[in-house]
């Protein structure tokens, strides 16, 4: 059974269609990523999935529970890490966790045990007694996550949980999510950082302007752009006969895979390591020196660029 099924989800705010017919399913135990630039509609999708507000149209099922009809019942299965820090600043980390645990009906020794475990998981056992307002952005984010996993939800839904934090905290969070997933928790993770989604998620949906423009495993998504790496050769600009280079290469590469911009030569190829020395040799044989080589493997950034003509972060 799917953990979550979303069908033809739509949401309009006045004339703005924030989400425009999105369908996908998440299997039990899977880690699923929603990647998209700011304003793509990720949070709106999450808010409808979690039952915070109903969609304009469409269906959401958590296992076989209709989220729109039986919201409270469905919410028992999930933990939600909201995009913003949703904590009481003047209370300590432990007090916050205890409070949120109580909101999920935990009490007594179950609550204490759960709070201790979660503090351990988010790495804040030492700072448990300190007020949240004294914490760094990263530490707050970690408590924000902690408050969502106290009741051991089957499905953890995280909306951009690493926005604006230091690399160390980010790594800690990514490791934590990975660990929770490996322990069997189903994960839905939204981000506009493609590295995070690439690292964490088995399957990825790419969202743009409220629509799901691509859906698949990382491998499948790369395939959509031919899975070509990008080789960038910077050429010495003392030599000026760069124009002849593409001709000398046409025997080895397809014409559409060769681009020359001033003193940059760009080649698309599936196996760059394989042809790199030959390529450099061919170029130098024309009398042009190669000053640097960059190999850019196909990533979600290039997939997004390919699909929308825009970069993920602009």
């Amino acid at each position, binding site marked *: 059974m799917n953990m979550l099924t979303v069908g033809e989800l739509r949401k309009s705010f006045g004339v703005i269609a924030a989400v425009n017919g999105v369908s996908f399913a998440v299997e039990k135990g899977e880690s699923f990523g929603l990647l998209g630039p700011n304003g793509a509609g990720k949070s709106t999708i999450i808010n409808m999935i979690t*039952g915070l507000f109903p969609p304009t149209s469409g269906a959401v099922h958590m296992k076989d529970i209709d989220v729109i009809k039986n919201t409270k019942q469905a919410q028992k299965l999930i933990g939600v890490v909201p995009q913003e820090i949703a904590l009481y600043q*003047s209370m300590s980390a432990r007090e916050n966790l205890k409070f949120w645990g109580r*909101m999920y009906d935990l009490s007594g020794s179950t609550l204490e045990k759960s709070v201790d475990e979660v503090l351990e998981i988010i790495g804040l056992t030492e700072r448990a007694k300190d007020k949240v307002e004294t914490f760094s952005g990263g530490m707050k984010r970690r408590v924000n996550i902690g408050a969502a996993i106290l009741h051991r939800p089957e499905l953890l839904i995280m909306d951009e949980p690493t926005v604006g934090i230091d690399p160390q905290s980010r790594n800690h969070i990514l490791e934590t999510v990975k660990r929770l997933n490996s322990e069997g928790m189903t994960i839905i993770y939204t981000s506009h950082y493609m590295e995070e989604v690439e690292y964490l998620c088995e399957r990825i949906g790419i969202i743009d302007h409220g629509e799901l423009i691509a859906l698949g495993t990382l491998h499948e998504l790369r395939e959509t752009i031919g899975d070509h790496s990008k080789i960038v050769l910077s050429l010495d600009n003392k030599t000026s006969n760069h124009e002849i280079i593409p001709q000398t290469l046409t025997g080895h590469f397809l014409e559409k895979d060769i681009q020359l911009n001033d003193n940059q030569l760009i080649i698309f190829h599936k196996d760059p390591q394989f042809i790199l020395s030959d390529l450099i040799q061919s170029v130098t044989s024309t009398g042009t020196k190669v000053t640097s080589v960059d190999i850019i493997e196909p990533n979600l950034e290039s997939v997004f660029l390919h699909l929308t003509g825009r970069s993920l972060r602009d």
Partner: protein
Amino acid sequence: MTFWWLAIKDLQIVVRDKKAFLTLIMMPLLLIAILGAAFGDVMKQDDDVTIEKFTLGIANLDKGQLSTVLTDEVFTKALSKQIKVKYYDENGLREKIKDHTLSVGIIIPANFTASMMSGSESKVKLLTVPDPGIKATIVQTVIEQFSNSISIEVFATQLAQPVNAGNQTSVFQPKPSSDEITQPLIKETTINAKTKPVESFQYYAAAMGVMFLLMTVVQGVTTMILEKEQAVYNRLLLTKLTFTQYLTGKMIGLIIISLAQAFLIILGTKLLFGVDWGPSLSGIALMTVGFVFNACGLGILAGSFIKTEKAFSVAGMFATQIMAAVGGSMVPLYLFPDWVISITKFLPNGLALQTYLDLMSGATFSEILPAIAGSVGLGLMFFAIGLIRLSLERRGRYA
């Protein structure tokens, strides 16, 4: 019982916020002290200042010494600026009141002096038109001051609608007849014999207390609206907590804070300034709960119309000031015309202040029960309208 934890959390946060805590507890005491000292004199002279001179009808059946002192020395001489005294016989007085040529009159019983001398109870009858206003209060207060062992029977002459023109002569009847069962003509109220007038400092303690409670409620509702705009509110709605539980928890938190504040104001003014809050502590506590409930209801109703926390806190500040002013917290209620006082009963703080004053004057628990019921009733009504609006808005916004 999740809502309890919500209430406890709110209390924790308030107690830790030193500024909020000081505002809640210290400011009221300080201001009561300052204003009580400053306005105390105004209160003492307020009859000079404002109340128009009126005529008091007296039917003195006693002719003894004490009644003469009361009528000649007190009413005629000492209060000459406020009161013009006219003497009637008993029936003449009743007639005058009945046809509204006179609005307040007293009948001093035949045994007045004798009873007073022997220390037993004597009842002065206070006759008034149905809506005598402040005049009756003044007369009553004077008599009470004259002797606080006198119990006064107030006969508020209720002018019932005549069934037909021919029936008009029977509108006022000194003795109840069988007619009145279907058509009550006289309402009789007996006021506690130990009724005491409210002193200026007492008045200000109550008035300021009510104002600060009002501010606490506005503050509480503002925080609620603020919280609604914050991520924690959404997160709360994602837990097991329902919207109703959320509201219940918030209300309980606010009621506990307000009760603590009321308790401290009462205790503080009692210990520091010797203010007498009357004998019924339970009356004060329950009235406070009723008041907070009522004011919260009004706040939530207002909140359902006002979208943002900023707008609400500005509007709330103005509304608090206006309500406090009209409700008697800034200017003594005695200075207002009667119809204003009646209308302010529909303001949570107006009703609360008047009830606190009643309690200070020795009203018993059962006497203020209608006020408590009224507060809760009004609060419920405000709540209901506010909630309906909120849920409609919620549906509308997200539909």
